């Protein structure tokens, strides 16, 4: 049983703020991923939870107790590091049992617990090897095993997959998810990879410049970003975002991207957007999957747009089509069967049910 609570958490490095006031409640057994670009303060936040960094201001609670001044070893947490940090002079068994041996647990119990965790992770064969005899993926498993075997209140992961090659990363991602399903423990996971964040998290916390931009379930973040930053950060390929003008004629709203391209705003959003009509500094956002090839059965609020593709990227299951509107490069995800060709003017279908209107100055999604 361990919730983790951060209250107005602040960290300055020699007057340079790294974390500028974070409030976050992490429920027991929840898997929370902190994600953001490098320098956004996510790793610093994790290290403060671990007790590896002093905190400049605010409070950290683990299991209801304030742990601001509690040393790492007494916080009952376990951490998996980006570079694994295995003890090079110890075997896998010794690495995993190090914390238990420090606690002076009986030998039998140590052996039993290590064996059980090694079983979960499939590293039972490796227990007598030294870290240098292991592959990257195996080292990663051992590092996780070392954390799990201690049965801590909280797991902390610091970009654990970023040293692995792409294929192994996808595999280990699934492994981590499986392990969390077996060993239900509160987990805080830091990554800069938004795909990792989306796939692993119960709740994703997007950080930027030392603050939380938005926290929520992966799909909520994806479909209803609260800010320009989240809209642009979550999703790959990224959301198409370009400047626009909101025009009102006879009670109906239109979003105009440039001289040629403009879309009617769906009727159910008219009330929400009306106040911004004519306002400057608005941005229009639409995800690539909502810009597709023309389809025979169109739904309400889908409307055609004529573009000249500049580049097409066949991905097999889809073809990415890149074109410019209003000086901004935009991306559409089309069916390969549509056979869109670069340089050949073509019609795409924009699904405005999923459009976003963003106020550039405040960065808020309206």
């Amino acid at each position, binding site marked *: 049983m361990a919730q983790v609570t951060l209250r107005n958490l602040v960290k300055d490095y020699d007057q340079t703020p790294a974390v500028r006031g974070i409030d976050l409640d992490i429920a027991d057994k929840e898997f929370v991923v902190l994600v953001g670009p490098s320098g956004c303060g996510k790793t610093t936040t994790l290290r403060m939870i671990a007790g*590896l960094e002093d905190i400049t201001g605010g409070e950290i609670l683990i299991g209801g107790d304030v742990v601001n001044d509690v040393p790492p*070893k007494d916080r009952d947490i376990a951490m998996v590091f980006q570079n694994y*940090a295995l*003890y*090079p*002079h110890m075997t896998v068994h010794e690495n995993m049992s190090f914390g238990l041996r420090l606690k002076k647990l009986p030998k039998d119990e140590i052996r039993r617990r290590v064996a059980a965790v090694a079983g979960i992770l499939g590293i039972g064969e490796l227990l007598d090897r030294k870290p240098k005899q292991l592959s990257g993926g195996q080292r990663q498993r051992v590092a996780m095993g*070392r954390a799990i075997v201690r049965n801590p209140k909280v797991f902390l992961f610091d970009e654990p997959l970023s040293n692995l090659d792409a294929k192994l990363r996808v595999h280990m991602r699934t492994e981590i998810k499986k392990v969390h399903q077996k060993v239900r423990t509160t987990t805080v996971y830091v990554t800069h990879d938004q795909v990792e964040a989306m796939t692993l998290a119960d709740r994703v916390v997007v950080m930027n410049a030392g603050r939380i931009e938005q926290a929520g379930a992966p799909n909520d973040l994806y479909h209803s970003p609260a800010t320009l930053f989240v809209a642009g950060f979550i999703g790959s390929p990224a959301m198409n975002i370009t400047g626009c003008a909101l025009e009102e004629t006879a009670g109906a709203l239109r979003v105009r991207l440039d001289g040629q391209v403009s879309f009617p705003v769906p009727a159910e959003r008219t009330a929400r957007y009306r106040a911004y009509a004519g306002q400057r500094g608005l941005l229009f956002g639409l995800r690539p999957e909502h810009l597709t090839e023309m389809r025979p059965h169109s739904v309400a609020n889908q409307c055609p747009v004529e573009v000249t593709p500049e580049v097409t990227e066949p991905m097999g299951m889809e073809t990415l089509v890149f074109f410019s509107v209003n000086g901004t490069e935009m991306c559409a995800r089309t069916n390969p069967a549509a056979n869109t060709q670069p340089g050949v003017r073509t019609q795409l279908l924009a699904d405005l049910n999923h459009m976003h209107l963003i106020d550039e100055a405040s960065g808020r999604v309206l």
Partner: protein
Amino acid sequence: MSASLRKERRAALAWSYVFLVLFAVIFLTPPLYMFITSLKTSAEISSAKLPWWVFHPTLDNYSALLTSPAYLTFFRNSAVVCVAVVAITMAISIPAAFSLSRMRFWGSGALATGVFLTYLIPETLLFIPLFKIFAFVQDWTGIELMNHWWILIVIFPTLTVPFCTWIMIGYFASIPKELDEAALIDGAGYLQVLTRIFLPVALPGVIAATIFAFTVSWADFLYPMAFATSIDQMVLPAGIVSTLIKGDVFNWGQIMTAALLGAAPPLVIYAFLMDYYIAGLTAGATKG
């Protein structure tokens, strides 16, 4: 692989051999000459016939030295001083290097540089001030520090501690920070991080420092010469020179034998520790 590359590699190898052989010859000639001379009688040495060959080999020099109470005393003094100095040096340097490399505290950077600067002051500058200090201590406490072999146990660490600390700061700094953080999270205290993680992982560095401390305290000449005057208080380097050179009579055979025997312990220790010294133990700790 092109032929020219292989040719270039062969040329590079050939040159390395040339220089390695040159070095080996330069460095091995003196011990070889010592060995040859140690097998000669004084008469044969002074006859100056072909110094590189022994016509009447004899072990007289060896038996004379190994039965001489004075030489055995030098040896014993040297050994005790050496072991004590190495122990004291390590007891101070290891925790010092650990705290200077890992525990950020006010002035730790300046202190680390200060430690190194201390080492740069040559001993030739220090033995006269040390004399003064010893005289001062004797005036105030009545304890005589001069002319005792054990005073070297106090003096040598002033040479060995700064340098050994400096070497080990470098080695400890090369240990990834995550390793001690992982241990801290696993429940270790700083002392356990030092003994269970740092010492095993930085063993090559600790051994390099040990070898240095051993070599200094075994072979240093100036301080033993300056601070011990009676025969029974001398250590090997000073003792050999003091007893085997009588006025202007150089007993070359015994001098060479004594030096050769004196060089044996470091040689044995180097050979023994070399494997550990070379082994890179940090491999596999982190990605790389």
